[in-house]
């Protein structure tokens, strides 16, 4: 061999070394700068953290708890069939899905197969005991609700990827994510809810629902000056931690999502309009009789009434005929404009995503004006109703509901009824409790005002179901200068021996509202210093 041969071999050898080092260098750049495509990435699938949700006093409502998701690598050397069977037995995962996933991802660039989400420590230990290769536990989070059913529909839930899908979890999603990113991840979103009030409301509604064998029940407590919702209950409810519904459970928020003909409780607006537009006077007396004809229709009373009634007793005794006459004095056009001004003819807007579009007559003639006057032929959500009623009693200024703590800020907007009208309505509502159908709502010392509503329930064919009622009570306290409004309702309650077989609101909903007020008022710092009054039934 001559020198040139050696020289050529050295050059070839050197060239091979350069190529080899170049390959190593390229790979290094690939791995360090661009990551490895072949390794797959579980991190890309991790969930976005959510901040805590708390009530207005800092009590925890919802929190992300650390859990683990289990993944299996399909490129790891193990028997897929046997591995899938063992993993399914240890975690409760679907064996067929696992096997199918492992086979499908065997040669994939991302060979990870999700075995089970949010496994418990026991399941983790069982999986570790299998000794299978290629298993990875990925840290994840589970949204947990310490109060369980306590405020299920109101707080809502998240999906498996931790995105809010209902309630405040959905409505406050942006705030929750922003708070999670702030203060080193320890930020929180403070809601307007007071868990003490929420519990009492839920407890009393559940008790009443059970006592009167009602299909459903609901309630709302709102600050009339700030619009803050302190409690909102919808029964039946569900366990937000269970991720599956038990028989009888419901995820529907009936007080925000459903619309109802609320019946006589709606008379509040007819009277407010009458006083505001000076079409009625407090000292006026109306002829009632046994029927009131409008064209071919005749309006009747639910109960026997005297021949004549003063204005205040029309509301106190809940006379349909008297209220219809008051509504007709305003006329359909002005009635519609008044209800629009109160926000009752448009869906309610708040942080709660669940809302309902109201139903009202397309042809607003005389009979429609009369029936809307006493709460028939118009359907609104209870939350819309409560908001409008709060605007009537808070000095007559528009209020919008909010589910975020406002720290006592007066959020009242423009004037919707005159302050004098508001005062007259508060006086009337108090009279309903001292002398009318709302006597059972009295909570000694707290000067409760309110109005009962016993509405007929329409069936699937549009006709009213015989003897079926939807009863409600809207209370304000203290009546001379209201701070809070309490609304409660029962869907199709049944009369019991204690109520003489009656299921009207005065027997079912009114006592429930009184009990709620008696329990929440001390917690809310409302003094029980109102002088005792003699109720019309003789009690004090």
């Amino acid at each position: 061999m001559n020198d040139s041969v050696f020289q050529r071999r050295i050059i070839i050898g050197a060239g091979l070394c350069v190529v080899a080092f170049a390959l190593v260098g390229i790979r290094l750049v690939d791995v360090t700068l661009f990551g490895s495509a072949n390794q797959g990435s579980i991190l890309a699938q991790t969930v976005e953290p959510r901040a805590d949700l708390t009530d207005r006093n800092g009590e925890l409502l919802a929190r992300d708890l650390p859990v683990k998701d289990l993944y299996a690598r399909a490129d790891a050397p193990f028997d897929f069939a046997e591995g899938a069977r063992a993993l399914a037995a240890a975690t409760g995962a679907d064996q067929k899905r696992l096997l199918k996933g492992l086979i499908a991802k065997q040669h994939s660039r991302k060979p990870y197969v999700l075995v089970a989400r949010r496994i418990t420590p026991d399941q983790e230990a069982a999986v570790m005991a299998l000794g299978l290769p290629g298993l990875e536990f990925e840290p994840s989070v589970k949204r947990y609700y310490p109060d369980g059913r306590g405020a299920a529909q109101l707080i809502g839930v998240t999906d498996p990827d931790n995105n809010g899908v209902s309630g405040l979890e959905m409505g406050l999603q942006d705030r929750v994510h922003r708070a999670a990113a702030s203060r080193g991840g320890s930020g929180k979103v403070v809601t307007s809810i007071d868990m003490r009030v929420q519990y009492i409301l839920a407890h009393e509604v559940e008790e009443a629902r059970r006592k009167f064998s009602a299909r459903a029940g609901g309630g709302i407590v709102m600050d009339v000056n700030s619009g803050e919702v302190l409690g909102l209950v919808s029964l039946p409810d569900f366990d937000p931690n269970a991720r599956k519904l038990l028989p009888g459970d419901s995820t529907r928020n009936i007080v925000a999502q459903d619309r109802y003909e609320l019946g006589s409780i709606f008379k509040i607006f007819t009277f407010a309009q009458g006083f505001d537009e000076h079409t009625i006077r407090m000292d006026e007396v109306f002829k009632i009789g046994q029927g009131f004809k409008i064209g071919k229709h005749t309006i009747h009373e639910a109960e026997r009434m005297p021949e004549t009634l003063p204005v205040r007793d029309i509301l106190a005794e809940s006379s349909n005929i008297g209220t219809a006459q008051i509504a007709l004095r305003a006329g359909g056009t002005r009635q519609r404009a008044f209800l629009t001004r109160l926000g009752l003819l448009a869906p309610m807007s708040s942080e709660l995503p669940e809302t309902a579009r109201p139903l009202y007559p397309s042809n607003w003639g005389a009979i429609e004006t009369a029936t809307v006057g006493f709460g028939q032929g118009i359907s609104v959500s209870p939350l819309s109703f409560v908001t409008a009623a709060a605007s009537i009693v808070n000095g007559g200024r528009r209020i919008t509901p909010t589910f975020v703590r406002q720290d006592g800020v007066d959020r009242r907007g423009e004037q919707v009824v005159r302050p004098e009208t508001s005062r007259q309505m508060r006086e009337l509502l108090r009279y309903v409790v001292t002398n009318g159908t709302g006597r059972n709502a009295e909570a000694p010392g707290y000067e409760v005002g309110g109005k009962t509503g016993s509405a007929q329930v329409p069936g699937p064919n549009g006709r009213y179901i015989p003897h079926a009622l939807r009863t409600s009570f809207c209370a304000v306290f203290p009546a001379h200068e209201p701070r809070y409004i309490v609304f409660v309702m029962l869907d199709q309650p049944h009369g019991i021996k204690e109520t003489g077989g009656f299921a009207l609101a005065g027997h079912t909903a009114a006592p429930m509202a009184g009990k709620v007020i008696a329990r929440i008022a001390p917690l809310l710092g409302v003094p029980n210093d109102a002088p005792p009054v003699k109720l019309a039934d003789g009690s004090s």
Partner: protein
Amino acid sequence: MIRVLNLFCVAVMGFTILGLYHVSEQTRVARKELASVTRQIADERSHISVLETEWQHVASPSRVQQLAEARLGMSNTASAQLSSFDLLPRRGAAEEALNKTPLRNANAIVTASAPPYDPDSGM
């Protein structure tokens, strides 16, 4: 002279290398400890988070009411039984206030009273 200077430079370089190695090693150990402590803090925070959630669960109003009713024989307080500190008579003026001021909160009949606790009931 140059040779001595060279030797000195080489020695300095050697010591510098050793020093750098020492510092680098200390940094590596410190980083490891830091990572371990950070992990520990994260674990503790996680535990605290779980404990706080558990506390919230066990101290929920529904549970407290159940226990208060079952174990202590308590029941809801009638509004007439409640008062405020502001309404209590001041020290010194107590006698006069109690004798001459009508009880402002005696405005209702107490309809419900808590059943007395019975230690023999086994609850």
